[in-house]
């Protein structure tokens, strides 16, 4: 019995249907859309994107990053795609990688009218990116394991022998906001002092874990006394009822302050939907959206004169490091390499 | 005609065929005698197009069929074969195995003669060794190709059946004018041969 000729007819009909469907699909009027690449945790960014879509009718197509790739994945995707970009907007949960993308000629300048009120320190002088809303680096402590008078108050307390090394944790200082914090210390203290500090931490054999979230979890479940993490992670633990408290380090009058890490937003160069991208950037930078993100718990510091309902700390009284973010970025590669030498062994 | 010109076949350091030259004319029966390991099966596989020759040529009709760089696919060579094992397809019944090579609208006299009409609905794993071998022979004959290769087709058959089947092979191939290459280690099967060759250690010589 040979192959049935009916199969050939069915195949021909299928080809015709597929061809017709493709033709119809290609000739349909395309709805407005915008493509957002974001490193912001999906649980925070997705509601904002959904709301934008509902408000404007512009379809949002998002690409989220995952902690496992430490933002490196998405940034490298943007660089690799730059000759034919798919993305319209880059929304970053921090700043260093945004500056990198500017250096790699992935971004286009755009000055949003909604950026009024944001201090110059958080806006690129050439308009390639805008910072809005920030998180802060913070020390999360377990209140059941520590007395209030014994809480660390400075980054240097991490070297204090009175705190057992196996009770202290930081995330790998090679990725994410921890890497940015290291670079900020390089910029503030000088590379040698900063490098020596971390070398001493490594010598102490403090716990180095896979991310700020892990630090948070270890403090929350009492595995360690305290660790370095971000405000959003800390608040998450507080809201879940963990016996923890946030301590902002180096807040004294002569101390350096803690690092504030702004979110940044930028227009991708040659993206397919420029007008829609600008509408989205304006939307995200609006006071209303910033307020919403504070409420969601993604960031805690509006970075501009804005009334926010922050129940866990006084956002106006956090002393930030006096830093130039571009200078921080300049130290990132050196800092990452030296931290790899110190901690990956 | 199937023509072999200086055909050799190596497997690494092992020389399975060494400078073989002979031919199988259409309508004639050529027999090759030889002990096991002499290269008979390898010869068949090269002629059928399952293997490239290491050197030399196989020509079928007027066309180059095989050379070290060139090979016409087996099904385009007008060759049918009976292998050392029955090689019946286990997912098909006897009738379907035969239908694969030549659609049959009704049982033929040939099927009755060989005694396998009654086996039509059985699967290969439901046949005895002898029955399976008979089916493979009838399958090859009904393919009705110009040339037929037979690799020890009657091995392990009882003498009576051997005689019947041998007779059928001879009659059918003579009737159709098929060129036959018959390989055996039993000289008693060679009485109808037009030419006999002897094979040993990959080399061939006319007897």
């Amino acid at each position: 019995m040979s192959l049935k000729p009916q199969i050939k007819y069915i195949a021909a009909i299928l080809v015709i249907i597929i061809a017709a469907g493709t033709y119809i699909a290609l000739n349909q009027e395309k709805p407005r859309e915008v493509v957002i690449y974001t490193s912001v945790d999906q649980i925070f960014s997705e509601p904002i994107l959904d709301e934008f879509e509902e408000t404007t009718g512009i379809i949002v197509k998002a690409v989220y990053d995952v902690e496992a790739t430490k933002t490196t994945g998405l940034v490298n995707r943007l660089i690799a795609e730059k000759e034919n970009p798919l993305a319209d907007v880059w929304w970053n949960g921090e700043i260093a990688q945004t500056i990198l993308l500017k250096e790699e000629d992935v971004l286009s300048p755009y000055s949003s009218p909604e950026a009024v009120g944001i201090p110059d320190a958080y806006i690129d002088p050439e308009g390639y990116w805008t910072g809005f809303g920030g998180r802060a680096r913070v020390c999360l402590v377990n209140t059941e394991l520590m007395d209030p008078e014994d809480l660390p108050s400075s980054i240097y307390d991490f070297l204090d022998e009175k705190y057992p090394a196996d009770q202290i944790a930081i995330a790998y200082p090679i990725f994410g906001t921890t890497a940015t914090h290291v670079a900020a210390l390089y910029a503030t203290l000088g590379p040698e002092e900063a490098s020596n500090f971390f070398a001493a931490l490594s010598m102490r054999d403090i716990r180095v874990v896979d991310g700020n979230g892990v630090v948070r979890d270890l403090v929350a479940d009492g595995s360690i006394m305290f660790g370095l993490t971000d405000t959003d992670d800390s608040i998450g633990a507080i809201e879940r009822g963990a016996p923890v408290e946030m301590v902002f380090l180096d807040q004294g009058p002569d101390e350096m302050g803690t690092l504030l890490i702004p979110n940044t937003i930028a227009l991708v160069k040659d993206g397919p939907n420029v007008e829609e991208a600008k509408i989205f950037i304006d939307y995200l930078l609006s006071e209303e959206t910033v307020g919403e993100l504070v409420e969601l718990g993604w960031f805690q510091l509006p970075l501009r004169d804005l009334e926010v309902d922050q129940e866990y700390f006084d956002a106006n009284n956090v002393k930030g490091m006096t830093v130039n973010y571009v200078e921080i970025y300049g130290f990132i590669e050196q800092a990452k390499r030296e931290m790899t030498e110190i901690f990956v062994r | 005609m199937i023509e072999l010109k200086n055909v050799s076949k190596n497997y690494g350091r092992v020389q399975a065929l060494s400078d073989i030259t002979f031919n199988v004319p259409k309508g004639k029966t050529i027999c090759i005698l030889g002990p096991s390991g002499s290269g008979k099966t390898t010869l068949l596989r090269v002629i059928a197009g399952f293997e490239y020759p290491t050197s030399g040529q196989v020509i079928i009709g007027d066309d180059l069929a095989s050379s070290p760089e060139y090979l016409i696919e087996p099904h385009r060579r007008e060759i049918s074969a009976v292998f050392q094992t029955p090689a019946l397809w286990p997912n098909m019944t006897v009738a379907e195995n035969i239908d694969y090579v030549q659609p049959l609208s009704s049982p033929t006299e040939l099927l009755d003669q060989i005694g396998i009409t009654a086996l039509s609905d059985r699967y290969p794993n439901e046949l005895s060794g002898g029955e399976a071998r008979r089916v493979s022979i009838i399958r090859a004959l009904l393919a009705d190709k110009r040339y037929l290769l037979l690799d020890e087709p009657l091995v392990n058959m009882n003498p009576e059946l051997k005689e019947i089947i041998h007779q059928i092979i001879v009659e059918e191939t003579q009737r159709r004018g098929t060129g036959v290459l018959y390989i055996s280690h039993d000289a008693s099967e060679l009485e109808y041969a037009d030419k006999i060759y002897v094979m040993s250690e990959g080399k061939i010589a006319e007897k």
Partner: protein
Amino acid sequence: MRLKETVPKIFIVLLLFGPLLYLVADAFIQAFSETGLIQLAFPVGRRLNLLINSLTLPTLVSITVAVIGLLAGSLLVYEDALVWRWIKWGFLVTAPVPPYIHALVWSSTIRMLNNLLRVYGFSLPVSGWFMSYLVDTMAYLPLGVGLAMVGYMLVETPAVEAARLFKEDIRVFMEIVVPLASPMILAALGFVFILVVTDYSVPTLYSYNVYSLEVFSEFSASNNSAHSVWLSMPIVLITLIVLVFSLRGLRNTVQSSSISRTETVSSWSFPSWFKSIQILAATIILIQVIFLLGGLLLETGNLTSLYFAVEAATDDLVVSGVIGLFGAVLGGVLGYVLSARLGKGGLWWVLISIPLALPSSIVGIGLIDVYSRWLPWLYGTMAMPILAVTIRFVAIATIIIYTQSKRVDALLFEAAELFKKEELQALWRVKMPLQKYGIAAAFAALIAFSVGELGSTLLVVPPGSETLTIRIFNYLHYGGSEEVAGLCLLVVVLMMGLTGIAFKTYIGDRKQ
């Protein structure tokens, strides 16, 4: 006629290896202008120590898996008892469950265990190499046991029974059966070694530094894939050596065991000490399955949580399903074509396994570099993640189909080619039906592995689409909620079903 063979070869090589070849070529070109790049391939000092230390974990995990596979596999293949026959392949359904899901369960389990143990004054480590070893071993145990079982099944019964006439069963097992099955067991050891040595996600979860982390860290610092390519050369070389060694054993076993078997040896009389360690090994696998399912069930809490988790992730389920299904079809077709090549030389074995050995993010970057530049109309579509999973896992499909096809007499295929009247007749009526179990098993396995893939999928998934794995990872980072456990449970159950089909069909060809 050689051209007819060469063109498909070139197409397959370009499709599978084009992106990787491009990256390697780019790395070599950059090496001319950037001094010091080549030096990355020769680790010294800290990196050399890291590399040497990094080999400990995969060595320990692969040996453990191989030993448990050797013991448990023999029990599951040769035991007559109904209980073992029923649950034989059930053990293996967790094979494609990703290690991060095992990490979720075992981290909770060890923490709970420590709460009990602290009463007696001690506790188990919750980080470091111990947890990495535990999680990786549990994750890859089914793979090791499965391959060991296939190894035992390829041992020819008459050969074993002949030996049993002359020596006691334990000696026959050690001297005849294990050596004959060892190539498959060694293959399992090799595959597990490669999967562990190229992974950094589990070790970094437990603060255990490995060389793969160095590679990724360099990528993060330089944002230059050429740096990572050169830095990963030692790992690639090591994995290739292991691969060639382990696959050589597989290749030889398969080629020498072309006779299909319909029965396994039964009624062994082993000494009680041996039976005990067999049962212990099988129990370890059972623990792995029970703890995986139980841990996730407990974490999920109730069906309502599961329902809400599934509802929120419906789109992601569809995307994962599409990638899995089409990746399986493409991978299955390519695997079928490549399986025919495996008999022609060892080089093909090495070639198909390179994408498995390289870090998954390298595959993703290669795809972006090639397709966004030269095929932009294809880039940004669902074709990209489908290609990514195909490239990564085609080796698995190829080897499954090849090993199963070797249980069929090759002469049947040759006869079909000889007698066919139409071009596709041999393929449709003989070759595919006789290999249907291998093809179905490869298909199901591909779906399962593709659904759980993260590293390369993340880099090429089209905007607006997200896989279930990406969503799970995002929620894991946020804080291991009930929803995460519910989604993980869904992934596990889906993968269990698919693996169950794969292994059931793989060994179902008894009549052939």
